[in-house]
């Protein structure tokens, strides 16, 4: 089933449309070109694409079939975007045609009152054991090989999979990912989860070679026990991060007991997530920060060091580390001696952790400091902070960090190259070498905390 959904050979768009403003047109266009909004990451689907529309002959140079049954080929995946009332018949046709999975884009089901709910139940009943359903009421699926969705574009290819209960969120994340060069392996919009739910998709991605980390946006989980069982197992080898919506407890009914009042729905979710060992993110930004960090850096064994050319940012970072329970220990005397001996340190450098190597630090000083500190046995990970001074060289500093990372691959490095356009190239170099960079030392500290927790969990 994994192949039919994530790596199909043939896809049929049922409800393909000539109307440029319709979803049925957008999906077909996305499949054959990668995206309606062109980006350098758009790739046409390399397998066969079939269009089904009884009223059209050709759309986008693809011949239309009146019904899926008329397609003279095996179809792995159907994408359905006909009005909700027609979906049941289309699914029955797909079953006859032995289509293995169907993405139902159409809305008008459980999200749309009693009628829709009944319709969704009928769908599920018809599909049971015969075809797997994604959706209904979803955006579709994107992988590095296909845009089987009506998302406007394709993101850069990377290691993070995103399973989302909000399709609209995925759309904007894709555009953001293009700007930020944030790599994604797969995006799955779960929709109403009539058949396949978040847990099923986690299972699906657990064996996907292109996915190293799974990021979740969750509004609700129907089968808590199933989710916990699958998430706990998969998280052991493939980290899972979750952002859960619905924290506010508005309109909570008067409840007689304290327990009833305190064990809110969100707190219960939080407990469940903690129990299966998955990370909980506080915001969209944090969700993708954590996912990127876990995808790009190894778990961190214990204490960390901070090297900075700006005292203030170093202190801020150390503050955040302390708040998150991260140890920023003193260096050995021998380490300070080694630093002194290089002759590259400023007379006023801090001689302690965080190591402030002073604003006039050139790449050579960064290099000496980074290598000496990473040599130290009790340091498990490193934060490198760079503020932009007149003599600062972000690109060369980035190369210094990258070289050191190659030399000490087991000690994770997170960077905080702060600034805008003038540090952009340095940051791009770091990110391209799998060293995450965050603009705010608070995000850096959180990333380090995640790597330390991962180390403790996987021991």
């Amino acid at each position, binding site marked *: 089933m994994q192949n039919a959904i994530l790596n199909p050979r043939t896809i049929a768009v049922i409800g393909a449309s000539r109307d440029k403003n319709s979803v049925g047109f957008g999906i077909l266009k996305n499949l054959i070109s990668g995206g309606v909004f062109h980006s350098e990451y758009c790739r046409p689907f390399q397998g066969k694409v079939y269009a089904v529309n009884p009223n059209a002959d050709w759309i986008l140079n693809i011949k239309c079939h009146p019904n899926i049954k008329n397609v003279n080929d095996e179809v792995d995946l159907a994408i359905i975007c006909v009005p909700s009332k027609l979906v049941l018949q289309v699914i029955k046709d797909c079953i006859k045609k032995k289509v293995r999975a169907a993405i139902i884009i159409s809305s008008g089901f459980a999200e749309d009152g009693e009628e829709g709910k009944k319709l969704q139940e009928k769908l599920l009943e018809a599909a049971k054991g015969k075809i797997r359903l994604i959706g209904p009421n979803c955006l579709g699926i994107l992988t590095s090989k296909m845009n089987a969705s009506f998302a406007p574009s394709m993101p850069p290819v990377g290691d993070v999979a995103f399973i989302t209960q909000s399709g609209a969120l995925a759309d904007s994340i894709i555009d953001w990912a293009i700007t930020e060069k944030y790599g994604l392996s797969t995006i799955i919009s779960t929709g109403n989860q009539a058949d396949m739910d978040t847990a099923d998709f986690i299972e699906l991605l657990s064996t996907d070679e292109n996915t190293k980390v799974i990021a979740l946006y969750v509004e*609700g*989980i*129907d*089968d*808590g*026990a199933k989710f*916990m069982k699958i998430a706990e197992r998969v998280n052991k080898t493939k980290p899972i991060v979750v952002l859960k919506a619905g924290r506010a407890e508005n309109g909570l009914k008067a409840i*007689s*007991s*304290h*327990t*009833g009042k*305190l*064990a809110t*729905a969100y*707190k*219960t*979710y*939080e*407990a*469940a997530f903690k*129990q299966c060992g998955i990370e909980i993110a506080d915001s969209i930004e944090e969700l993708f920060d954590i996912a990127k960090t876990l995808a790009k850096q190894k778990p961190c064994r214990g204490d960390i060091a901070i090297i900075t050319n700006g005292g203030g940012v170093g202190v801020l970072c150390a503050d955040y580390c302390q708040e998150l329970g991260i140890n920023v220990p003193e260096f050995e005397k021998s380490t300070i001696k080694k630093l002194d001996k290089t002759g590259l340190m400023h007379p006023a450098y801090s001689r302690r952790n965080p190591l402030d190597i002073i604003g006039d630090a050139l790449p050579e000083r960064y290099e000496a400091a980074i290598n000496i500190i990473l040599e130290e046995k009790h340091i498990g990970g490193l934060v490198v902070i760079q503020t932009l001074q007149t003599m600062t060289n972000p690109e060369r500093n980035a190369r210094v960090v990258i070289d050191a990372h190659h030399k000490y691959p087991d000690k994770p490095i997170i960077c905080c190259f702060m600034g805008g356009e003038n540090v952009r190239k340095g940051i791009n170099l770091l990110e391209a070498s799998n060293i995450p960079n965050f603009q705010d030392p608070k995000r850096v500290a959180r990333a380090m905390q995640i790597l330390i927790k991962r180390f403790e969990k996987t021991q």
Partner: protein
Amino acid sequence: MKLLPTDKIISILAKNKIPIPKTKLVNSKKELFNAAKITGYPLFIKVNSPDLAHKTDIGAVKKVEKEEQLLEAYNQVIKNTRKKMPKARVKGVILQEVKFGKEVIIGVKKDPQFNHVLLFGLGGIFVEIFKDVSLRIVPVNEKDAEEMIKEIKGYQILKGARDEKEVNIEELKKIIVNVSKLVTANKNISEIDLNPVIVNQKEAVAADFKIMVE
């Protein structure tokens, strides 16, 4: 959701090794003084009613220091209840030994997605104002119970801040695990509220208890 009658709750708690202070149900004035001999003084007198969720607020609970005050307290709590909650069914009163120690809350709620979730926190005003609680999806084993206790910010208070001695954490753990076992075996329990559980160096007892079933 239905609140179980007090006598039923007491027998469920006893069966599941969840200790409570010496407690006597009293149906009439006549039995009052004999019952008090069993609990001893000081004691709490509480109106026994399935319709009262928060007894203290309406004066349906009083602390009685000595025998001479007992009858007066009895009349008072009944009167208060009749006045403030005229529709409440009154099934006599409960006499209960007064225990001293720190207050914690141990409770369970049935969640539509995750089934029973167990809650632990510091009791009294701490739970109301700071909401300093930890939760786990049931089943909860001894290790989980220990984590739950250590997870709350108020753990330092239980451990004994300044010159105070540490409370009996082991006894708390036992109650948590036994509550978990109780709801695992009884799927129809929708809510349990042991609030407060009084814990001191020696023991932990559920001084007030509610069990709701579907």
